[in-house]
């Protein structure tokens, strides 16, 4: 698992970081995004749906986990 610290970044930067960095993990591995922009809670799951990746949920406040499927 890799962790991306996007705290303090405004939308859509956390989603851009996620899209750029998910290539750096193997298929099946997890990326954790730390983001406190209020749009992240909505836009990270929406990105997963649009890009066919798996949204695993928010294990802690301002943290979101995504599993690479493709």
């Amino acid at each position, binding site marked *: 698992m890799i962790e991306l610290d996007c705290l303090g970044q*405004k*939308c*859509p930067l956390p989603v851009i970081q996620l899209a750029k960095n998910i290539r750096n993990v193997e298929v099946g591995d997890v990326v954790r995004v730390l983001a406190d922009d209020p749009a992240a809670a*909505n*836009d990270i799951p*929406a990105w997963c749906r649009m890009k066919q990746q798996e949204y695993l949920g928010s294990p802690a406040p301002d943290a979101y986990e995504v599993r690479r499927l493709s």
Partner: protein
Amino acid sequence: MAVPAAYLDAATAAPLHPVAREALLAALDDGWADPSRLYSAGRRAQQLSDAATAAFAEALAVRQDEVSLWPSGTAAAQAAVLGALAGRARHGDTLVHSAIEHSAVLHVARRGKAVEVPVDRLGRLDLDAWDRAVSTPGTAVAALISASHEVGTEQPVAAAADYCAEAGVPLYVDAAQSIGRAPVAPGWSLLSASAHKWGGPPGVGVLIVRKGVRWISPYPQDDLYRPGVSGALDLPAVVAAAASLRAVLAEAQTEAVRLSALVDRIRERVAATVPDVEVVGDPVRRLPHLVTFSCLYVDGEALLHALDRAGFAVSSGSSCTASTLKPSHVLEAMGVLSHGNVRVSLHRGTTEDEVERFLAVLPGIVEKIRQEAGM
């Protein structure tokens, strides 16, 4: 020669209809006096006021004494909910509302007890949850927007009204985006609309309270027997609003067909020419003039400014464009992408050429913003 800017934000405010302009200018000369006075200038103003109320009643198929006028659509919406809640205080204190109401209604909801009913991915009300909510004891009033002001999805007003009738709960419908453009199903108890959404002047809200619905003014009242704002209304604006509503309704069906075809074209072409885009809302059961889409990796504010520089006025539900810096509650309730969001809304002055020019420049503008972000 510079191409004139294309105004594609009618859902915020439609350009003044020529009939509204004409009526406004005439009423400025004739309708300045206080209608409650007994001299001839006052009587003339009263006649204008009565004729405007009669025109609203006819256009909305209600009785004249069910019409009241307010200084904005927001004021009418808030008077509707607050007055209906006050009228139902003996039965309950809870407001049931959809998750996609206009913020005018949500701000009222936050002042007391409220139950929010969700929508699906297309922005359609969850009718089962609505049924459960309105039939829960303690429910005073239910509020449902006729069609989403942000994504255009039409709501099942008739079915929602049936559940309300079964439960004995009055239904308030915020019809600001529908009046003058699309029919609203019957069955509601209160309805509000906003003149500048149909091409009337800003500063006129219309509230209908059906006979038999208990409505108690939430504001200090003067000695009038009808609900309404205390103090003088902008009578010339009211006259212009009524005249333009009549004119708009006369052309509404043809305009709906024309604009709906342009919206279909935008929905199809944006999806085909912009990569990683989500065109949101119900593609079929929707307002004729409004379409919304979100572009991945795009800053909404940058997109609005770039479109403005290219000569297109549109609005956005992205958080970076909102005063609250929070994403649109409507897009959130639907679970669709909120950044890179654009709402395009058309009006009677919108031409096919404007839409084509917009569709021609959009993909390049989106691509450039993405490149600058390293995508």
